[in-house]
């Protein structure tokens, strides 16, 4: 009986312990990453940094927790095979810069948002979703983080803001691009976006 109790608890502990804590710790890890990136944008110690320096710092914080390549590769989808190795690396780097630029400039001039993580839901054998609410400029937005267990550990593969999936949006754009364009055109377009700041520039469609 003693053996039964002891081994049962040990087995249950071994069985569910790492599983529960692995999922639970994902929430803490995500919250830590969000706080760290917001600190870069809003804390007094980083106030003197230029926009580019802030983007680099944010990238540093992000990459210390997650592999950004995962989300970008997922957004590129099967189009990845349409590029050679050099182009693949260049596209990864340019999209990374574009996403960081959009993130940092999108929060510029606004009060620090408050982000609260809520429910964690298992949506597949190796996938979880973490719900969150973001209060920005007195408005509440619902954001969902999707994570998958990859060879490199749990990674964010999609962010869904107000029902709009970022990965789906970029997948659609890149699919559309490769119907007529090439990898070289894509690289040129991404480079153009990184130097562009104004809405008044011509819309290339």
């Amino acid at each position, binding site marked *: 009986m003693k053996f039964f109790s002891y081994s049962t608890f040990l087995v249950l502990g071994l069985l569910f312990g790492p599983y529960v804590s692995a999922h639970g710790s994902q929430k803490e890890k995500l919250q830590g990453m969000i706080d760290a990136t917001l600190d870069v944008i809003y804390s007094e110690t980083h106030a003197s940094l230029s926009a580019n320096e802030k983007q680099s710092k944010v990238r540093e914080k992000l990459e210390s927790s997650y592999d950004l390549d995962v989300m970008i590769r997922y957004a590129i989808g099967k189009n990845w095979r349409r590029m050679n190795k050099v182009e693949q690396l260049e596209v990864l780097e340019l999209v990374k810069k574009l996403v960081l630029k959009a993130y940092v400039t999108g929060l510029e001039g606004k009060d620090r948002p408050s982000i609260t993580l809520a429910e964690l839901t298992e949506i597949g054998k190796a996938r979880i979703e973490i719900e969150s609410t973001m209060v920005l400029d007195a408005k509440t937005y619902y954001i969902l983080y999707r994570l998958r267990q990859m060879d490199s550990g749990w990674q964010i593969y999609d962010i869904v803001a107000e029902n*709009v*999936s970022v990965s789906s949006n970029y997948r659609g754009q890149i699919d559309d691009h490769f119907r007529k364009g090439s990898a070289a055109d894509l690289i040129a377009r991404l480079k153009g976006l990184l130097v562009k700041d104004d809405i008044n520039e011509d819309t290339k469609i």
Partner: protein
Amino acid sequence: MKTQKFKGPLAWASLIGVLTVTTLTAQVRDLTGDEEFYTSPVDESTNVYDPFESVNRFTFVFNDFVFSNTVQPLVDAYTAIAPDPVEEGASNFFHNLRYPVRLASNLLQFRFKGAWVETGRFAINSTVGIVGILTPADDYEGFAPIKSEDVGQVFGAWGIGEGPYLVLPFLGPSNLRDLAGFFGDRAVNPLKGPFSVIDDWKWEWQLALSGTENIARSPQIIKRYKQLKGSSIDPYSSLRNSYSQYRRGAVAE
């Protein structure tokens, strides 16, 4: 002796533990590897029926031109002149005026709780909130803001399909169902035609009201549009995808 007795069960338990953890780890991982995952379909479908793409793209460029050269300078002037509380108050005022649309849309979907919340908010904001300029209802329990409903969503909830994607001149992204919903919104709005409750509602006044409403709503829309355009490989495709995902989500909620 005691130690020996203990060692046996511990060894077994450890073995079972290791085996179960190994099995669990194998179960937890998807059957597909990373490479297959990258090429798997995205969770939200990107498929949008767009048979008029060439016309839509042309209208998109036209709208972009109008937006950049007419609407944006007006909105820039408005945001420069009007302090933030005035901008917010104007936006609140016009949102409050659209209460009949939200009420009808909730009722048509049998969302009685939504209709109740909208009615309570309208009553509180129109009185305590000085004709809807302020939103004191936010602080009343049970009357926190809820997601806005419109007639296009009603049609979606009734099972009517989206139809083809459309880009409407001056109005922007839509689809056949939402275009019908747009006319439905006007029909249930007592301040707008064709069933306006105001008898001598001259077109000049209607135009002034609509124009002011659009300018009051534009700063937020322009910010989002600029952000979308600044980070899009193909702004037309990005807007079509965002609009469709957003509307599908709104209907599903």
